């Protein structure tokens, strides 16, 4: 087998971890609050700028910059819910999607205004590891491992804690849960904070590998939506499989054709799959 092809496939796998993590955050919000945050990837962009600013400009230690970015985006998530979603919670889902579309516009333009359209890199060079003639970036390996760990922690939280159980219960039946003594508004806030925190974590992992610019959300935002929907609502395993399939198409397609064509392939696959399996790959 061609070592470059194998390298492309491995890099695709490593990217899948981060994409799956982000899709998980979106999935949680989609499943529990039943809204699509179309600006989710732009919250990630905010987190990446925070990491860049604190680490590369102010010289904070990386772990603290990471923690700050996660907290910041979690807070943003809560704000999004309070300011945008809560006032129109009972209106048609498409209205909530459009309102967060306004947020997308705002965040991208605001970032352009403040940071200009320059590409910024946190300037951290992590080593490249050689395994049997294959060169694999340490940053990607780390991102994959952390994304997996994040997913496991989330799984544990949803399965083993009271709040996690309440979140899963709301995703199943929001009418009955109220009768069981669960405060819906609080659960929505917690869910938004977790969704935001996952976006923040994703931002940290992406900041290790990519330059940040105001429109970075446009490049992988649509991918996250595809993975989230393809994986099926409330289905974590499905999300990982979808992330894997999509990122392999992009990595291997990029190797054989060009990056854009591989994206075209992935988006076309998404459209076709929406027709034949709208409930997701592993959906019920």
């Amino acid at each position, binding site marked *: 087998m061609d070592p470059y092809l194998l390298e492309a496939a491995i890099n695709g796998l490593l990217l899948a971890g981060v994409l799956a993590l982000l899709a998980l955050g979106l999935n949680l919000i989609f499943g529990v609050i039943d809204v699509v945050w179309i600006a989710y990837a732009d919250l990630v962009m905010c987190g990446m700028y925070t990491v860049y600013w604190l680490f590369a400009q102010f010289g904070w230690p990386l772990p603290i910059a990471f923690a700050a970015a996660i907290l910041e985006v979690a807070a943003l998530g809560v704000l999004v819910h309070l300011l945008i979603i809560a006032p129109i919670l009972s209106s048609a889902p498409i209205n909530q999607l459009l309102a967060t579309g306004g947020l997308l*516009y705002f965040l991208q333009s605001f970032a352009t205004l403040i940071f200009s359209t320059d590409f910024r890199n946190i300037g951290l060079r992590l080593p490249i590891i050689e395994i049997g003639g294959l060169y694999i970036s340490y940053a990607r390996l780390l991102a994959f491992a952390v994304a997996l760990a994040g997913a496991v922690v989330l799984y544990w939280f949803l399965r083993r804690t009271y709040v996690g159980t309440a979140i899963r219960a709301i995703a199943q039946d929001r009418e009955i849960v109220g009768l069981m003594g669960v405060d819906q508004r609080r659960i929505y806030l917690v869910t938004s904070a977790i969704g935001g925190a996952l976006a923040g974590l994703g931002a940290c992992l992406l900041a290790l590998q990519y330059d940040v610019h105001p429109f970075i959300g446009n490049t992988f935002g*649509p991918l996250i939506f595809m993975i989230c929907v393809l994986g099926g609502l409330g289905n974590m395993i499905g999300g990982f499989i979808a992330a894997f399939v999509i990122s392999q198409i992009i990595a291997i397609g990029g190797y054989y054709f060009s990056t854009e064509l591989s994206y075209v392939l992935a988006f076309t696959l998404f459209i076709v799959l929406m*027709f034949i399996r709208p409930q997701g790959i592993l959906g019920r």
Partner: protein
Amino acid sequence: MNARGMAAIAGLVVLAALPVVTPAYFLHLLIQILLWGFIYTAWSMMGRFGLVSLGHGAFMGIGAYVPALLWNYFAVTPWLGIPFGIVLSALLGLVIGYPCFRLKVVGHYFALVTLALGQVVLLSIVAARDITGGSLGMTPRSIGHSWYALQFPDKIYFYAIALLAWLLGLAVWRWIDRGIGREALEAISDDEEAAAAIGIDVTREKLRVTIISAALTALGGALFGQYLMYLNPETVSGIAVSLQIVFAAIAGGMYAMLGPTMGSLLTISLTEGLRVWFGANFVGAANAIYGVLLVLFVIFMPRGILGWLLTARPRKRPDAAPAE
């Protein structure tokens, strides 16, 4: 003749006379307002019935690129190239719409499918960089003033063309509004199951407006390409364009005939006003303000400005939200 008809005629006379009195810069703005107003009207033909598309950039892109490519590489006149682009765009609307409507992909799922469609067209244009110039964009080969090439350095011609296109959009709107299809579509957007139960062919009705909307949007894209003489994948097919269409239509009010035009007038005035006021460096500010306004409009004024102004009149549909 009633007061409404008189007002319409007076408005037309003013619009026809405007280029005589306005300087070139304002003429440029007027052309943009009319062309965007036309595209927003085309989008709203779907949007008002709950078919919220986040991928109209796809139709604009096809409409703009097909005639330009045919002209540059095969010297085919835009008089043939533009209809060809429109047909392709309508076909794409059919290919995407039919399975969507047949399989009941609605609401935000429909929005996400159209979002993906916009990306497919955008990235295909970029990927075909050998012939389209990729993200650097392309320029239709210029031959000066020519009816054959539909190129007019004098803006007055494009003003007339934009005005005609806009009127065409309004005429189509009126035709849909007057036809039996409107009631069927309103029933569908209220309750699809119930509409099907009383014998409305849901797929057919939705497909019809989708194809009309796709075709008109392609025409709008083509006219923009001919007017600006420069095409760029991001500015005809990007996510930002698709969202801009949605925003302006909502802000103006997508349930009233002149609502989308109102949206075009508002957004372009706002952009230009901010640009003149603060200078070109501050161009991001206009978009940031749009973003905030869009959020506020969806929350407080889902019927748009014109819809809000018209609520004093007897309503046709009470408190319609963009979709159910």
